[in-house]
């Protein structure tokens, strides 16, 4: 019981200090009042001009992919960077002899986590049904991202999750797509480059970077914005999907060192 009190003291101190601080400061706007300064300066412009400027009724997608499209390109680069970092760190297999602390051999009293204790029908049958449904939903989320919710990240993450389900749940069966980590990193880079390519196309079309109105296709202004948004979303989807598969493969392939027989 004393240990619990000893643990609780710092948490209580934190609560008291924060309560005192919040009693003193009151500059934060109260949540929910419509004419707080945060809304009037830029966001009202986004809400009123989103459909006219970007032809996308979903304001959040309009802000992400059209008004602040440069942010999202860099953020997909951060995603690619993380996938590449994981691959580099786990690329080479260190030899067990060069290790500082020899691991304690405690494999005996630990049940083998690999083989599942149960053999059930739902694992093999259900997976074959669930995967196509998620894929269809991912495609819907991608292409319908401007009108309803969704967009590149969600679609990419969903397809990544299909790959995870496929390789993790039933490791025995041959999985749908085999993507070793060298190729999936290259695919992530290529996906993010599709995003950059859209920007370069707007430069070629004579406009400023990521100005979809100047895409060199022969379309009306609204259609150009929609095609620009669609190309960008496809790039983000491929980038995010390939990065999630990369990180999964890299961490999953790491054999367990402790019970190397």
């Amino acid at each position: 019981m004393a240990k619990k009190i000893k643990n609780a003291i710092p948490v209580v101190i934190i609560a008291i200090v924060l309560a005192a601080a919040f009693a003193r400061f009151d500059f934060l706007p109260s949540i929910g009042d419509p004419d707080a300064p945060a809304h009037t300066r830029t966001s009202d412009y986004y809400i009123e001009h989103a459909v006219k400027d970007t032809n996308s009724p979903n304001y959040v997608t309009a802000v992400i992919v059209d008004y602040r499209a440069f942010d999202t390109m860099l953020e997909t680069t951060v995603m690619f960077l993380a996938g590449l970092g994981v691959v580099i760190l786990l690329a080479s297999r260190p030899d067990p002899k060069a290790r500082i602390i020899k691991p304690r051999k405690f494999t005996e009293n630990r049940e083998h986590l690999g083989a599942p204790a149960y053999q059930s029908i739902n694992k093999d049958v259900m997976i074959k049904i669930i995967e196509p449904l998620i894929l269809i939903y991912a495609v819907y989320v991608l292409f319908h991202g401007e009108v309803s919710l969704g967009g590149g990240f969600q679609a990419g993450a969903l397809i990544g999750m299909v790959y995870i389900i496929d390789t993790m749940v039933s490791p025995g069966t041959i999985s749908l797509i085999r993507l070793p980590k060298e190729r999936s990193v290259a695919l992530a880079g290529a996906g993010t480059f599709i995003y950059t390519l859209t920007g370069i196309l707007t430069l070629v079309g004579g406009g400023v970077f990521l100005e979809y109105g100047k895409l060199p296709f022969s379309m009306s202004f609204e259609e150009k914005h929609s095609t620009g948004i669609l190309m960008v979303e496809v790039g983000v989807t491929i980038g995010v999907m390939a990065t999630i598969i990369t990180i999964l493969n890299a961490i999953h392939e790491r054999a367990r060192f402790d019970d190397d027989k």
Partner: protein
Amino acid sequence: MHSLILEAVLLMALIAITLVVIFDKDLLAAVVTYCAFSFITMFLYIVMGAPDVAFTEAVIGVISTIYFVISLRNIDRRCK
């Protein structure tokens, strides 16, 4: 106006989960509690009226929990 009270209750649940994660001895339990954390966060974003963010948080919460569990296979579950 009642959504603020719901947000406050959900935030208190998040704080409780954080305490569990900090003072828990078994790593796998901490990771599973973290999965509950990201689910309640997703629910919190829905209550706040941010469906896009909630969608992303749900998907990325599940994927980061899967990464934690897979890397936990390489790292033993006990912790001091």
